[in-house]
């Protein structure tokens, strides 16, 4: 996917001024956030489980080479093939090769963020295959020619009315006077259209939430059941996964599953969780005859060696974006690459470079909500700060910002000059903004006050008040 992260400011501005998007985004705090809080409060062990989940992932990453080898061995033992791909391009080529060998025409997919990351659909279509997304949200954005705006709710930016319009535009074979106004009728129509695709697909492609080294199983979680149809019906099944998806044992996967759905949708468990390994066994009446796993690096080993390695614990639950005030205001598309929200702000610069992704780690108020809700204990704000430092070190920060920082530094080192300057600035600032008690105008950071107001200063500086208080205390 071609990154558009350099346009973050522009696109965030457009998003804020887009009333349809703003209506759709209201569902994020009302849905995901409230449901997660409820699920967490229903399970007294939730926090303890997140701690164990973190330990499991940290352990798996510390022995990643050995667990990958163990996993590969088990997949082969169950009759599956394993392929290794250093880059996204390599992965795409391997996958189209498998499709070609299978004589495939139609490829059915279930939701997989890594296939978005490596732009698999575009590659397969360019290679002559028809690709159909089967997760309802993914299908909706596929027919609109869009990319996901959320890692677990790809079409969260759409309203019902937009979806109805798209269905009427795309499903031209259906009667034009059909009733299509409620979510239920929309889902039924999608079921009807996609059922046919499931039954006729030659190859099924899924991602994986986890790869279990102990058994060679790929674990997939859905609510719709589409991933199960994708990995049961076609003759060939391909699992596409990055190397950090490895966990040691079934028990370890089980522990992480206990926090995954609760953090993501607020369900206690997703409707369907599937552990699968290898092709259909000799006596099996159904299932694919050929299975492949593509293990992709695409920057993971670099991350592992870097100061950002903790991000590899991520289980893509989406909690950080659900709770992020920036995401809640601008949605996912403004971020301009596969992963939006706080996790995107950390991942994107490592994939597209800090020059392209510059704005993302800067688009944070450091409120800390993301770190607080992250079940994998990833210090997202600290990692964003590391990107900011790098950007500064590489001289990417704008002249204005650098000047501002230099000025600040100059004052910080000269307390007298600082006190003198604030003693002049504060009364003037109060005078200008008095009427509203909030400043809607600031001399330098104009953008800051476009969508919020800055509280007026209290009339005296902290240091002065402190001095006065100390003096008072002494007198008593």
């Amino acid at each position: 996917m071609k990154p558009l992260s350099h346009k973050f400011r522009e696109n965030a501005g457009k998003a804020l001024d887009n009333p349809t998007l703003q209506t759709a985004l209201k569902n994020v705090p009302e849905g995901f956030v409230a449901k997660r809080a409820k699920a967490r409060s229903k399970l007294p062990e939730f926090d303890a489980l997140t701690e164990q989940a973190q330990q499991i992932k940290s352990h798996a990453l510390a022995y990643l080479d050995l667990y990958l080898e163990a996993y590969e061995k088990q997949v082969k033992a169950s009759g599956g093939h394993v392929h290794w791909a250093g880059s996204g391009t390599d992965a795409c080529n391997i996958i189209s090769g498998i499709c070609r060998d299978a004589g495939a025409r139609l490829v059915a997919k279930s939701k997989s963020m890594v296939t978005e990351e490596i732009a698999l659909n575009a590659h397969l279509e360019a290679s002559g295959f028809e690709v159909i997304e089967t997760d309802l949200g993914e299908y909706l954005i596929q027919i609109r020619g869009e990319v996901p705006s959320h890692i677990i709710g790809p079409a969260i930016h759409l309203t019902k009315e937009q979806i109805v319009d798209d269905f009427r535009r795309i499903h031209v074979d259906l009667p034009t006077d059909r009733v299509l106004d409620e979510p239920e009728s929309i889902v039924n129509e999608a079921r009807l259209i996609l059922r046919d695709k499931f039954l006729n697909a030659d190859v099924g492609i899924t991602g994986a939430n986890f790869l279990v080294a102990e058994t060679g199983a790929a674990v997939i979680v859905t609510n719709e059941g589409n991933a199960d149809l994708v990995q049961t019906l076609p003759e060939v099944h391909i699992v596409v996964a990055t190397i950090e998806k490895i966990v040691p044992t079934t028990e370890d996967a089980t522990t992480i599953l206990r926090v995954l759905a609760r953090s993501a949708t607020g369900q206690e468990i997703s409707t369907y969780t599937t552990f699968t390994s290898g092709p259909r066994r000799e006596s099996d009446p159904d299932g694919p005859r050929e299975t492949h796993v593509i293990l992709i690096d695409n920057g993971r080993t670099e991350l592992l060696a870097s100061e950002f390695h903790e991000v590899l614990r991520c289980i893509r639950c989406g909690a950080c974006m659900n709770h992020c005030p920036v995401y809640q205001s601008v949605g996912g598309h403004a971020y301009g690459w596969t992963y939006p929200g706080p996790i995107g702000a950390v991942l994107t610069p490592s994939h597209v470079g800090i020059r392209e992704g510059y704005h993302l780690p800067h688009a944070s108020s450091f409120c800390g909500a993301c770190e607080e809700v992250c079940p994998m204990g990833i210090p997202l704000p600290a990692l964003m700060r590391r990107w900011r430092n790098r950007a500064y070190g590489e001289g990417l920060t704008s002249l204005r910002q650098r000047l501002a920082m230099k000025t600040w530094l100059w004052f910080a080192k000269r307390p007298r000059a600082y006190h003198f300057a604030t003693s002049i600035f504060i009364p003037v600032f109060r005078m200008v903004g008095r009427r509203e008690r909030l400043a809607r105008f600031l001399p330098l950071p104009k953008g800051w006050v476009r969508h919020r107001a800055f509280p007026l200063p209290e009339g005296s500086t902290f240091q002065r008040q402190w001095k006065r208080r100390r003096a008072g205390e002494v007198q008593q």
Partner: protein
Amino acid sequence: MTDHPLSARDRILGNVRAALKATENDNARTFMVQKRLKLHKRNLIPSRAELPMESKVRLFQTTLEGQSASVAKIAAADALPGAVAQYLASQNLEKTIRTGDDPIFEGLDWDGAMITRSIGATAGDDPVALSMANYGVCETGTLFLTSGPRNPTSLSFLPMTHIIAVNERDIVGSYEEAWDGIRLASDMERRGASGLPRTVNLISGASRTGDIEQTIILGAHGPKNLHVIIIGKA
């Protein structure tokens, strides 16, 4: 493909080791990993999974009902055809079902309940399927089903209505207990991963989607109706 797959493998594993500052034949590391895989120790199990049998069954039932499934209880397997017929009638469905070849279904009087039963996988034209679960887990109202001739996987996903029967004695507290049972049944100790069934499905309700404005709608791609029948000990 520009790279030989083998070289990509070696390069990735080499990069992982370099990032971890590890060497290839480090016995201590290998031992650590082998041990963890062999022992597959349990982690923390929520206390709600540790209940007396009767409460377990109750929790299993109420949790499933909260996840848009319906639940019925029968005293013994021979009441199964009647219970299935009753459910189908309540849903205005035809009395035709598709099942796997689980021996528990064999000796039952389907004709007596006016049910036409066919056996095998489904190609999508069977409106109702009946499966037998290996385990029911009360922790989250989850059914464990393993693939094979007794339980074709397609039966769990293609029909609009899915009925799952589970023996009361197979209702356990935690997922971990179900996993132990599956390991034992597939003789994993001796046969390794190759003894495992291709698929283990954990099913915890009817198919659903929240993709349209986060409104939950049932029957997205899989079954819209999930009915669970608990078979008592008698």
